[in-house]
């Protein structure tokens, strides 16, 4: 199966050699090499976006005991084509009092970071488009551009509800960015590098010959994985954190005045961002492109990576089908009063695990350091929202 494993790289070098045999100069080949990689990555992720948009609807439908879209194509799988035609042919309305330049640029500024962030993910063995020494930092730095886009979208619509929606969306994104970054930093600390390939390599090997050594299978790693997962749900504005874009909240929040292709661009950016952050979660916590058991290594590494991303995306859809939307004050309280202390607990637990020698005692210690704050914080949360007698502050 080594041939299948190396198939994409071999294909690209074969293509470039074939072109080179026609006397095409070196510099064009270098440019073409970069262009093929970029094109493949973007093509794969846009294809995933199209598939996800219809599979999400079908999975949500099955969870609600109904069929999903099943009219267009076999099992409704050509629905994205119909959706695309609809989005492209819709009239593009811009409110007269809106800020035209900023209104136009907001979808662009939203889409570009979502695509740029795909450059550092290791898709397979030796298959990183850009090998950066500070890859994790690049991921979060470029992801910060999304917040600017949300603000631009909300402001340029010249609509009070859009501005309110944009402010809520930005508050949500900033609040959840901290547990996200701290969870990523924990893995960087344990593997000793900020480069995604090094973090994947640090999760290699098999304990006792068959157990994978992924970070998500350790107590601190499991906590950090959940923190990263919740932060990822909040960053891509997915349920249960989809207050900014829920239909019943402030119309569509910062996306109210967008129609047609610009709305489709926002939608696309959200899904591509979701897949990108799933890819990061897989790289940091689920062992990247590595197989879970030694005998499963015959399946190519890029297949494993894709499969793991699809699995994490499926759990995100599953969570969307299950949980109701959180209110803005609940959302922010959860981020600052629960996730932030838990992220510090996970950080401390990871450090103790490492310095206690990574033996059985270290595992017990790290489990205790994570579990006790979890139970205490969880208990404090369940009392907080109980109904008590109302007191009126100003009417007495």
């Amino acid at each position, binding site marked *: 199966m080594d041939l299948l494993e190396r198939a994409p790289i071999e294909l690209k070098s074969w293509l470039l050699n074939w072109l080179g045999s026609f006397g095409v100069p070196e*510099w064009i080949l*270098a440019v073409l090499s970069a262009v093929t990689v970029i094109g493949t990555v973007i093509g794969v992720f846009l294809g995933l976006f199209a598939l996800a948009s219809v599979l999400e609807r079908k999975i949500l439908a099955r969870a609600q005991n109904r069929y999903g879209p099943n009219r267009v194509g076999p099992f409704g799988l050509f629905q994205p084509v119909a959706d695309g035609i609809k989005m492209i042919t819709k009239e593009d309305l811009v409110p007269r009092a809106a800020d035209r330049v900023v209104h136009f640029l907001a979808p662009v500024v939203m889409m570009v970071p979502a695509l740029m962030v795909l450059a550092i993910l290791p898709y397979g063995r030796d298959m990183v488009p850009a090998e950066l*020494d500070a890859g994790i930092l690049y991921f979060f*730095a470029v992801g910060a551009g999304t917040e*600017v886009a949300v603000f631009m979208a909300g402001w340029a619509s010249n609509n009070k509800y859009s501005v309110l929606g944009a*402010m809520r969306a930005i508050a949500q994104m900033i609040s959840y960015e901290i547990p996200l970054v701290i969870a990523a930093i924990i893995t960087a600390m344990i593997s000793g590098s900020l480069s995604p390939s090094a973090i994947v390599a640090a999760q290699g090997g098999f304990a006792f010959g068959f157990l994978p050594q992924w970070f998500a299978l350790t107590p601190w790693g499991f906590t950090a994985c959940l923190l990263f997962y919740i932060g990822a749900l909040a960053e891509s504005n997915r349920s249960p954190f989809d207050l900014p874009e829920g239909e019943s909240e402030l119309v569509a929040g910062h996306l109210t005045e967008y129609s047609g292709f610009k709305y489709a661009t926002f939608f696309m950016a959200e899904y591509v961002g979701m897949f990108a952050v799933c890819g990061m979660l897989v790289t940091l916590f689920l062992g990247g492109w590595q197989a879970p058991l030694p005998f499963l290594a015959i399946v190519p590494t890029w297949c494993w990576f894709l499969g793991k991303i699809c699995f994490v995306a499926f759990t995100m859809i599953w969570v969307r089908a299950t949980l109701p939307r959180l209110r803005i004050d609940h959302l922010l309280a959860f981020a600052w009063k629960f996730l932030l202390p838990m992220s510090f607990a996970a950080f401390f637990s990871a450090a103790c695990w490492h310095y206690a020698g990574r033996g059985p005692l270290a595992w017990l210690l790290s489990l205790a350091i994570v579990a006790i704050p979890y139970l205490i914080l969880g208990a404090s949360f369940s009392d907080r929202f109980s109904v008590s007698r109302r007191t009126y502050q100003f009417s007495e």
Partner: protein
Amino acid sequence: MIREFLKTCCADPSKFLGDWFVLLPATVLLLAAAASVVMRNLIHAALCLTLSFIALGIVFIALGAEFVGFVQLLVYVGAVAMIIVFAILLTRPEQLARSGSALSGFGPAGGAAVGFLALAVLLGFIFSSPLAKKPLPPPASAPVAAIGEALMGDHVVALIAIGVLLTASLVGAAVIAMEDKP
């Protein structure tokens, strides 16, 4: 001639555009900063300032300081620009379209004069200090690891002091934002 130029470009990306690899984002930075001072619409000015932050980050990356460049993007664009935007939105949402003459008072000549004076003083001190005379150390092979070791080794006191400062500001913000219990 174009062929040679492009051949050197793709062989070594930092030689792409030659010196313009740094000068192009630097030009964008200066233009965006000037625009953010001159523009009337306050939100447009804030967005131009954000663009200047992004350009500065790209300048850092082009000069080879990747870590600083990414941190610049993360902190300035992700946090400082958001603070500026929130401050504008929360304090004066109504009167943003026409925020008065942007260049009033001493006028553009006075402002430019003050700016150039400040630049001259700064450059004078920089070039006369020992910093300009020391030779540059060679770039580290693992720059992030080198930065980490420097922070935790030679400069750990400064790091801990900054940590205390940030904790104090966080606690202060939480105290200010706490609800008044009746």
